[in-house]
């Protein structure tokens, strides 16, 4: 119980730290924020810009707790409604690509971990390295060139109305693929999983289990669950960062695209809101990871 309380406490504390960091960086900006955007005094007041810095922070953070991130400095829209509108497709994209990565990486990683010196294992390493060194946007171009060149067809408009299979698949499939492969996610997963499999395979208890003739996959499975979840969590940040590029290439309207646009227009309240939401998402995953570790690993319970 103490352990769990500690983990949750750390979660809250780190969120506070992160929010402070974001706020601090944004307010390092030289010059008056209200002047940069020619804000009317009423808007500036609405964004607490007329208060002292520290009060501003607490008012902003208090607002964030109630999902009120302020209003956009460019067009006055509510940031929370912007995020609410752009988030669902982004989540679908992110988790779709996560799922695809795991689907590909687990078999490859396990194989490479079990047979690191076999020709196929070596080929996997090589392929993984080469793939991780292609930046997302370059891969995006390659994919687009292939799709345009071969099919001369690509759906760019987001599907509207009720769910239909093909429009959704064609709209999401390319970004998901590019994000999974080009962002190094698959490569990172394969490398990590194979290393972990190699470790477990060399562990004494696997040798003992082999000597007993027991079914090894059970022991492998229990030992692999935590590391795999762990690598997913540590890769969440990379995944969400990659969204910015993928959404820009495919003109995909999601949080990444929104943050790109907000940066171009220096829309401070929007970028602060998005960053905080992303940090929260990552933190939640980290929290889940820690709790899972306590639940699954008896050594962590003390």
């Amino acid at each position, binding site marked *: 119980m103490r352990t769990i309380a500690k983990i949750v406490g750390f979660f809250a504390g780190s969120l506070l730290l992160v929010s402070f960091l974001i706020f601090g960086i944004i307010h390092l900006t030289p010059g008056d924020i209200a002047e940069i955007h020619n804000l009317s005094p009423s808007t500036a007041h609405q964004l607490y810009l007329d208060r002292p810095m520290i009060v501003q922070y607490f008012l902003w953070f208090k607002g964030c707790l109630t999902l009120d991130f302020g209003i956009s400095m460019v067009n006055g829209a509510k940031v929370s409604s912007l995020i609410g509108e752009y988030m669902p497709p982004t989540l679908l994209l992110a988790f779709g690509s996560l799922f695809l990565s795991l689907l590909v990486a687990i078999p490859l990683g396990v194989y490479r971990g079990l047979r690191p010196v076999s020709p196929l294992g070596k080929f996997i390493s090589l392929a993984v390295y080469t793939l991780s060194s292609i930046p997302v946007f370059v891969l995006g171009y390659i994919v687009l060139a292939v799709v345009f060149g071969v099919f001369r067809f690509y759906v760019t408009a987001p599907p509207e109305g009720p769910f239909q299979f093909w429009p959704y698949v064609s709209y999401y499939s390319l970004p998901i693929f590019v994000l999974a492969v080009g962002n190094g996610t698959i490569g990172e997963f394969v490398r990590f999983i194979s290393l972990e499999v190699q470790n477990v395979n060399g562990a004494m208890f696997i040798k003992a289990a082999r000597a007993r003739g027991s079914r090894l996959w059970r*022991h492998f499975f229990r030992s692999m669950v935590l590391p795999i979840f762990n690598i997913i969590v540590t890769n969440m940040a990379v995944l969400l960062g990659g969204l910015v590029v993928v959404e820009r290439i495919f003109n995909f309207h999601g949080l990444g695209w929104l943050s790109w646009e907000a940066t171009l227009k220096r829309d401070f309240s929007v970028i602060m809101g998005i960053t905080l939401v992303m940090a929260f998402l990552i933190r939640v995953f980290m929290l889940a990871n820690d709790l899972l570790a306590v639940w699954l690993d008896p050594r962590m319970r003390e």
Partner: protein
Amino acid sequence: MKADGTVGGGALLSIRDLCIWFGGGGNYLKAVNHASLEVGRGEIVGLIGQSGSGKTTLAMGLLGLVKGYPGLWSGEALLDGKSLLPDMARLITRKEIAAGKGDQGRSGETVEKKYIPFQRAHRRQLRGVLGREIATIFQEPKASLDPFYTVGEHMLEALERNLDRHGDAVKAGGGKKALKAIGVGLLKDVGLVDAENLWGLHPHEISGGMAQRVMISMALCAKPKLLIADEPSTSLDVTTQAKLLQLFLTLRDKHGLSIIIISHDIGVIQEISSRIYVMHRGAVVETGASSTVLGSPKHPYTASLLDSFSRFGEKLPMPPSNPDGGKGCAYRDMCAAYRGSLTAEERAACEDRKPIGQADALRAADLDRAALPAGRQRDAAVPGAVKAAINWSKCHYPGLSKAHGPGTPSTYNLDKLSAEAGGEENIVEVRGLRKRFSQGTRSFLALNDISLSIPKGKTYGLVGESGSGKSTLGLSIMALQGVDGGEILYKGEDILKQNRSRMLVLRKEIRMLFQHPEGVLNSGMTIDSILAEGLEREGRVAKSEIVRRVAEALEQVRLDPSHGARYPSNLSSGEKQRATIARALITKPAFLVCDEPVASLDLAIQSQVMSLLKEFQRHLGLSYLFISHNLALVKILADRIGVMYMGYLVEEARVEHFTVHGVRHPYTRLLLASTPSLDPGIREILSAYPDVEPVRLEGGCPFRNRCPIYLSKGSKVCESTMPPLLEQSPGARVACHYPLN
């Protein structure tokens, strides 16, 4: 009688001419070299040799459990007439003549297997054998259990695989409950009295000794025919080891189990095995009944092994650093006879030919049971046990090198410095030292009011099991760890109260030897630069002076000056430990804390290091605090010995005091009795002690849960007060309410 040393029909496991090579692509390393081995039913066979002798590779390779799967095989291995190796003829892709690899023209059919097909075939062959006919336990019992599974889940898994062997019991109850009952029964069988509680615990919550018993009871789930124990007690405390060895004997008698016990420790092998195979460089060099082999070894290697076991601290020839096998006898570089008494013509044989097994025919009558100590008749009651054993050794001139004494570490002919205590001056005095460790909410005293004094030019031995606080004491004296009270006087000044600059001076005079040289020698630095570093703090020292003193230190520890330019990874473990001694000696210290300096070394190398330490004491007048878990080892070097248990000093006396019948504290007696030996009287003493795990008890005497006196008397005073350390007999301080005799 066959010359190759077979024991005839009825053998459970017979290995003939087994060779195992590692590597691939024409680049091979022979790890096992024409080894033949037989195990009878209900027999305990010992496999002994130094590390790297191929004893583990032989057993584990056979079971397909070695890392870096072997690339080349020859020979055969039969368990109950059924082969353990895949049919090599069917897998042959290329025949290789072993002769080309430095063999004596004994060409065999070998298989160079494309790695995976052979491995697969081998695994298939072993599928019904591993964990069914042959069970295995390993050196690191805690690591051998899956950290995510409870003891109970482990047992259930093993039982479920072997349901057919518990048929009647399952019919009676059925389901998990019945299995649990069987499992608990098996755990109790191996001496885990508290099996019900143990059932739900995870491996990290139990001790190493318990984990090893769990491993054994999992092995018993299958009712196997053969148990292979690979260094089963090496990582355990000596008292736990004694109980474990007893368990092996019980298992053999009760379940008719055959056991192969692999160890580098002659004491362990000698205590329980009836026959012995001695391995050296992948070959079996000598075999026979254990009393014969260890009583009058024929092979010089066996003789030297025994020597290093029984005569710790004697000056032994240092083996050449780069031994070369060649075509002759692989051992000749280290062979005392070859280097000494043999004539040139006789030596030619050693250089030209590999020795073949020379039988020393031993009649069954020679294995007279009467010759064995009463109560230790090994092959007595078990039907089908191997009655006749054949002694042979692979040596051209067997029996030339005699071991110096019987294989018990009871003969110490170390000439200690004059024992007279007249006006002896103490170099270090420890007074009322306390140290508290806390883990989360729990905290305990790792050092509880420790007071002791170390006389100048003498050795103070500190003995205790793991967790007794002996290393903590060593680190505190080195001021490498803060303490919570007490004082440590070095030549009258309190180490704990010195300022930085004085400490720098003191650090030159007080040095330390550690257990693992790997942690001491920076792998990125040459030995020379590591040694020179010690002189850095002496201010400006001329370059020529540094070179001179480094060379001097290397010479003191008998390292070749050329070793100075090497990196630690290019030294053998013994050389590394000698380098760490040189590193300490270079600052010309007066006092050395030796924290288990030989625990990680092979027996022969242990005695080299010990003899070096003794020599320095004699010539340089060094004083030592010698910390070890091995009382027998400490007795060799020490003048005074202190025994620690759970942070308390429980007994302290001169070395002569420490005999099984002389000591006054029950724990010390337990320690002494646990040292492997053949004396039946000691067995009796040992059996008075309960088979329980050491735990930290709150209040009262910490030893009472394992103390036969408390258990028989049930005295209240043991529960309420810790006995003070009082002088019970002249020169002996004991902390016990009811000291022995």
